[in-house]
Every structure is written in C-alpha cells, then in structure tokens.
C-alpha cells in the first residue's frame, strides 16, 4: 500500500464518519418533528370547547374538564410541597454543606433520585400514603389527589434541589463576605442576600420541576387513581390529564382517541413552553453572569 493509498483511505473514513454523524443529527431531529407534528395535527383537529366544559363521565360526548382541574390542583399542591423543601435543601447543600461529606452524599443521591423510575416512587407513595389512609377509613382503598400530589412532589424535588444548589454557587463569594463583615447573621445573609441574588435562577428551577411533573403518568396510577367526575377536594380520587390520556388510549373507541390527542396537545404545549422559557431564561442568566 502506498502512502497515497493510506491518505485516501483516511480521507474516506473521515468523510464517512462526517456523513454518518450528520445523518444521526437528522434522524434525531426527524423523530422530534415526527412526534410533534402528529401531536399537533391530531390534537388540533380534536380541539373543541367541550374539552374545557364537560367531564370525562360522558365518554366520547364529554370533555376533559375534570382532568384539567385535577391536574391543576395536584400540580399546585405538588409544587407547594416540593418548592419550599427543595429550595431549603438546595440552600443547605450550597451554603452549609458544600464541602462536607454529608453534603457530597446528599448531592450524589439527589442526582440518582433525579432519574429514578417514577413508577417506583408511585409504589412508595401508595405504601406510605394510600395504605395508611385506607386503614383510617376502615379498609376502603383511599386513593386521593393528595397522594398523587405527594408522588409528583417526589418527581419535582430533585430538580429544584439541584438548580437551587447550582444557582446559589454562582452567587459571588464577595457578597457573602460583605454581608458577614457587617455582622449579619448567616440565616439573614442566606435569605435576604443570597436567595435574593439567585431568585431568578431558583424560580427557573421551580418552573423546570413543574414542566417535569406535569407530564408524569406512572406515579399517578395508584395514588390519585382517576375519577370520571369533577373533584376539587384533594382527599377525593382525582382525574388528571395524563391519566385520562392513558385510559382513552387504551380504549378501542376511536372517538376517545381523538379526545386523548387533544389532551396530549394541551399537555405537550404546556410542558414545552414551560421548559423552553425556563431554559432560555437560564441561558440568558448564565451569560450575563459570566
């Protein structure tokens, strides 16, 4: 083999790799466009006012109003649980335990919780919330919106812990030193100086958590269960958009599939808009900080 042969073979290998990697990017984009396009097309053609006014009990003649309300209630309760806990835990990691062993362990395990299987978290909440509440109500299985919200909170918690931790670490150390040198106690420094400096990042983390938990289905199956009627009280069984989509997709009736697509469109738009704006915000934030 002459040197020239080797040269051309290396160029050929390089060219092939370049083309294949371009193809890989095209395949990835194609799947994104395919999924979004189908959701948009099927969802838009089924979009209807009765989605927002009628409940799922009417089946194909009905809508998704109880599912929308249920999702809103559970998402809000979940946020009310995981936002304060997550922000405080993230603050602990960044401000009090950034160099301790305990902090390292918690940060490490939080990253694992971030990708833990959501269905197991659903089982966990079934064991610690649904079963004890069933015992209180003398044996009747007590699925409830509250249990669903707790399961969702477990999904959102690690997202908030992580972003809060990272955002507080971006706050310049001089700010801490300046406040401490004025004799400010550390809790006041944390709440009134550091959190205020990092508030936009923390809020972004909360929004990302909301985007993550709003689309979850698996943890709701055996916690909130589902409910064909309107329910506002979180101690009742509660319908939610993902669960309604799951049930309608499993049904052979094509009219229900159409409603499921409309629900899918609503949830996809909500989640994508939230995560896009949160990402855009984070990105801009980081750029101005550098």
């Amino acid at each position, binding site marked *: 083999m002459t040197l020239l042969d080797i040269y051309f073979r290396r160029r050929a290998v390089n060219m092939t790799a370049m083309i294949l990697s371009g193809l890989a*990017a095209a395949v990835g984009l194609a*799947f994104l466009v395919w999924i979004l396009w189908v959701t948009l097309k099927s969802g838009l053609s089924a979009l209807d006012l009765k989605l927002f006014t009628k409940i799922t009990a009417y089946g194909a003649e009905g809508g998704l109003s109880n599912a929308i309300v249920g999702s809103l209630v559970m998402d809000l309760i979940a946020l009310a649980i995981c936002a304060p806990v997550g922000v405080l*835990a993230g603050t602990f990691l960044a401000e009090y335990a950034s160099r301790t062993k305990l902090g390292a362990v918690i940060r490490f395990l939080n990253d694992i919780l971030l990708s833990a299987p959501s269905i197991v978290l659903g089982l966990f909440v079934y064991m610690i919330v649904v079963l004890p509440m069933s015992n209180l109500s003398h044996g009747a299985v007590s699925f409830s919106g509250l249990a669903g919200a707790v399961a969702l909170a477990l999904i959102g918690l690690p997202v908030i812990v992580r972003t809060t931790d990272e955002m507080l670490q971006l706050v310049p150390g001089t700010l801490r030193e300046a406040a401490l040198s004025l004799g400010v106690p550390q809790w006041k420094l944390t709440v009134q100086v550091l959190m205020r400096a990092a508030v936009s990042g923390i809020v972004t983390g909360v929004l990302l958590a909301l985007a993550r938990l709003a689309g979850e289905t698996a943890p709701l199956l055996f916690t909130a269960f589902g409910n064909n009627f309107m329910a506002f009280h979180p101690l009742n069984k509660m319908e939610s958009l993902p669960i309604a989509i799951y049930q309608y997709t499993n049904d052979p009736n094509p009219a229900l599939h159409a409603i499921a697509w409309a629900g899918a469109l609503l949830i996809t738009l909500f989640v994508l808009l939230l995560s896009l704006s949160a990402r855009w915000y984070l990105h801009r934030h980081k750029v101005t900080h550098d």
Partner: protein
Amino acid sequence: MSSIPATIATENADRRSRVDARHDVWFRRLLKVCALLVLAALLGAALSTLWGGREVLLGHGLHFLTSDAWNPVTNDYGAWAPIFGTLVTSLIALILAVPTAFGIALFLTEIAPAWLRGPVAMAIELLASIPSIIYGMWGLFVFVPFMASIEPGLSEMLGRIPLFGKLFQGPPIGLGLLTAGIVLAVMILPFICSVMREVFQTVPNRLKESSYALGSTTWEVVWDIVLPYTRSAVIGGIFLGLGRALGETMAVTFVLGNAYDITASLLMPGTSISSSIANEFNEAVGTHRSALIALGFLLFVVTFVVLLVSRLMLRQLARREGA
C-alpha cells in the same frame, strides 16, 4: 450613640448576638431536615417496596427471580419474563441510541457551523422534555402501524441469516420488543447525547490542536483524542441512559403487547417490569399485589446500581477537570 452608657450598649450587643446565634442554629437545622428528606425519599422507596413485596420476596425466594411463571390463578409468580423484557428492550435502546447520540454529539462539537449548534442542541434536548405518555401514544397510534408495515420486509431481509435471523422472525403486528426498544432509544437519546456533548467540550483545545497539527483528520481527533480523554464520562452517560430505559413505563406499556412470553424473536410481544406494574397493579390483590411490589423493588435496586455507576463515572471526569 455616645449618650448611651457603654454597659447598656454591650449588653444589647450581647443579647443580640445570642439571639442571632439561636436563630442560626434553628435555621441550619431546618435546612438540614429538608436536605435529609432527599435521603429519606430514596431510602423510603427502597424499604417500602421491600416491605410490600416481602411475602413474595421471602416466600418464593430465588424461585421468584428465575421462574417464568406468572399465574394469578394459582398464585405462582416468577419475575423472569418481565426482567427479560426490561433487559431486552433496554439493550435494543442502548444499541440504537449510543451510536446515534455519539454521532449527534460529534456533529454538534466538531462538524456543524457555529450558528447551527445552538438550535440543533436545543431541539435534541426538547426530545427529553416531551412527556413519556406522548411517546406512548405516538408509539401506539403512529409507530406501531409503521413498524407493522416494514416488519415483513425486515423478516424477509434479516430473517434468513443463520442464528441472528431468529431475532427477526415473527408475526408482523408492529407491537413487540423491537418497537418498544426503538421508542425507548428515541427517549434516552437526548440524555446520552447531552452528556457526550458536554464532556466533549471539556477536552482541552491544545490536545486537539496538537493532533490536527500532526495531520489528523477530524475523525481521528475524535476517535483517538477526544474519546479516550472522556471515556469514563461517556460510559457514565451511557449508563445514565440505561437507567432511564430500565425504569421507563408509559412509553413501553402501550407498544410491548403485554404478554408473559420469553421468545427469541424481537417481533413478539413481551412485557417489562414497569409495564406489568402499570397494567396490573390496580386489579391485583393479595399475593399478586405483593409480587408486583416485589417487581418494583427489583427495578429500584437495579436502576439504583446502574445510576450509581453512572454518577461515579461522571464524577471522575469532573474531578480531573478540577485538578
């Protein structure tokens, strides 16, 4: 200030610093409790599923792991079929997603013009924020018919190869392990890709430039310089994707076909740990329910180990970067 006697001033300051110190202690405790809740969540998930599945885990013992029986009528439960389905679909997902993710990461870090990198990276990451139920719906209504239309050709083409061909012989119904594996591959693609892209960017420019100066092609720089430099983190990223694939529920439940069969063919329907739990839990009572919770425990332990390995590998690179 000067009119206040010195003793009162110091007394006030003393009291104030004592109060501040007390508040600080309580604030610190509050934060610590919240942080410990993260530990409690993980530990609780493990312990509660262990407790809920104790009847089957302890009663059936090893039989539960190795038996492929799943019979609610005779109360005989073996986890092998769901474990098999989970492993096979995750493996297919990895085989398809890892090279694709590598290709995209290569494209985004070395090949694409600068103006294209941001938008393409953003689009790939969007794949990760689509809820899994949407993947499931799209899988069932769009991708399964698509697979059903290409599977006869697939069997025709690949089914003839000896040994390997067995994988692709079966009914062309679209549902099955292969379809589930492909849907999973699309789902975990963005996770693996974003790790690879991030760590590829950490390779010092002088290393790459030295290699280019010696006459390397782009491919040789990536394969001989970038990849060895980032090896542990790349493996970490792959394990992260594996962890996601193992635990994914909604995307696979619709397209697997829910059958407790163990077959050589990838075109046959199967089941997975998570889809068994999702499909049966609400109808299950007694031992059946315990068996499903025990499955959940298995899933949790396996994903925990996989994710642990992943994070350890990812951390190695971070440490070297800091050094």
